[in-house]
């Protein structure tokens, strides 16, 4: 699958020849597989003439770009000031232990979840907050976490 670039070529075609395209191009390219593989970045370099080092430089600079495969569901844990003073750390601990993540890992072994920290989701009045895919969960306590995660596990079984 890695070597089939039909979808990617269609995206590159839309951007070719315009200035300042690299970031939106990479954002769209990432949507195909959920991350940017080295093959994808090399292919973009070949097709656009942008140096591979520049592409890698941009991909590693911005937190949105992922260089590793991501889980089916993305859990964003808010680390904004309001969440921090509302003990977001205990929510993170609860997530890490419920997902059985090993130190240094952000994705579960079954590739169902990827856990990441974000600076602020802008829903400070609901602190502490997490976002799973596009759904926001607010006013959380560590005890509420397992039940929330279960909803996503259940969907997978179906």
């Amino acid at each position, binding site marked *: 699958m890695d070597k089939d670039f039909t979808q990617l070529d269609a995206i590159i075609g839309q951007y070719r020849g315009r200035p300042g395209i690299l970031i939106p191009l990479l954002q769209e390219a990432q949507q195909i597989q959920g991350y940017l593989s080295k093959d994808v970045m090399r292919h973009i370099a070949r097709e656009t003439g942008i140096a591979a080092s520049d592409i890698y430089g941009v991909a590693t*600079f911005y937190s949105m770009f992922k260089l590793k495969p991501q889980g089916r569901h993305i859990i964003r844990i808010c680390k904004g*000031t309001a969440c921090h*003073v509302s003990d977001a750390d205990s929510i993170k601990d609860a997530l890490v232990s419920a997902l059985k993540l090993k130190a240094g890992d952000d994705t579960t072994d079954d590739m169902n979840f990827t856990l990441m920290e974000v600076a602020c989701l802008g829903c400070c009045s609901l602190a502490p907050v997490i976002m799973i895919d596009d759904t926001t969960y607010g006013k959380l306590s560590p005890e509420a976490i397992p039940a929330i995660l279960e909803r996503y596990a259940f969907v997978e079984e179906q």
Partner: protein
Amino acid sequence: MKQISVKVGLASCGVAAGAMEVYNAIKEYKEHAEGLDLKQTACIGMCFEEPIVELDGGAQGKLSLGKVDPAGIIDIIEAYRRGELTQANVILADEIEGSRNSLLEGQTRIVLRNCGVIDPKSIDDYIAKGGYLALQKALSMKPEDIVNVITESGLRGRGGAGFTTGKKWSLAAEAEGKKKYVVCNADEGDPGAFMDRSTLEGDPHNVIEGMIIGAYAMGADEGYIYCRAEYPMAINHLKLAIARAEERGFLGHKILGTDFNFELHIKEGAGAFVCGEETALMQSIEGKRGMPTIRPPYPARCGLWGCPTNINNVETWANISWIINHGAQEFRKIGTDKSPGTKVFALAGKIAGSGLIEVPMGITLRDIIYNVGGGMKTEKPFKAVQMGGPSGGCIPASLLDTTVDYDSINATGAIMGSGGMVVMDEGTCMVDVARFFLNFTQNESCGKCTFCRIGTKRMLEILTRITEGKGEPEDIERLEELASNIIKGSLCGLGQTAPNPVLTTLRYFKDEYLAHIEEKRCPAGVCTALIRYEIIEDKCIGCTACARKCPVSCISGAVKQPHFIDQEKCIHCGACYKACKFNAIRKG
């Protein structure tokens, strides 16, 4: 049956609190109910009351309900129709008592005037409120006269630093170049700040109108709105607004029949806080790593792709149409002499009325927190208010009578910033707060300047060890020295202001640092490593609940006998404290 209108607030904060379910419940009800007009709006600012529903047209007049539950909303609507709605849940009302009416009284709304009032997806709603009249007026003026009006208004950049907007505009207007750009900085990255998100979600046309006027005044024909990708609804509303404005001839070629052309694009950020800095933001629009560059040359002379460029933040742009419509003198009547106008703040943390407010400059912090913000959320007393996010500082209770204007806030060591205001109570540890912000700036440093890259790391290490009870007496001096060098040795605002959270907490809360370092004690009871758990013999009944929960098995004692915690082995996790049902464990 008499027609009533129902409006549901569907901004991000409302949706996160469940407003969509409320909206859908009413939509379903509407299918077999007559005389009901269902609309959506964005955020009135009272995030703590979301989901909010506004009812109008009934005998009880216009009123808003807070914390609406999808299961109960239909009964409420029917009671309202009969004119029998009780006052529970009524937060804002014209004719009857609303529990939160007082929170709006201290506010002056220019930027947020349409937020939570109009449907942000409808250009007709915006036009009905006088939208795009300022553009028509501006296009009949000479460009230099518009710049003069903005200069006379005394408007200062709302992004944080407070540079005079008129001055910035005149530099870009005078700069030579065939091609010029205007940019809207919507890369709102300060944790605890969501003013720009709400403004863009709630009234996108107002920001766009300001940009079109600015482009005409400065001679630009192309513009960018650089918006955080974490704000999908804001981006969505902007895209829709741009398309509608193009259809009506407010944007694009030969605007409103004149020779003025202006094209507006949206650029989504990709997650880098430093891109809020204007030179880094331009690098990012050009598709590069967002690293700041040396100024001069300033963007007004040499900006995007080498062309003269003007960059203002969302709130600054959102002031423009009002100033053109009402004139510089009317604007100067609000606020203070040196800081005219209003400021939008995002209230968060331990405050009862968390959400978005717009107040005249010159109001005191005390007024904001205790009147407009509704006071503290918990019973614990007020300790500090954090302003300006990672670039700002913590202002203590003794300075609560400070007035809100650029110069007075700067004098405290904090900064006005973009408008994040996080209220902290006695349960917040100030060393931990400083460590939190340093951790943030350390992560977000782009790495270009050595002092910012490594200096913030060293400061973070020192702060971390202080919170772990390993602080040394010399650490305070080391922090101060590093702070001063980072300020001097950094190119952009991120590095130059990164030490502020540490410097202000050291200035106002030194006792807390000393308690951590000398007594190995966290007065607020936040720093885990410094918390000591002890069993109170008289209260312990020997139920063994704590011993069973302890992950390191450091609690001993026979059944029905008082238990004992081995302090040597204890990892301070607090599991025993939570497990005890008899309040027999002391935390301190």
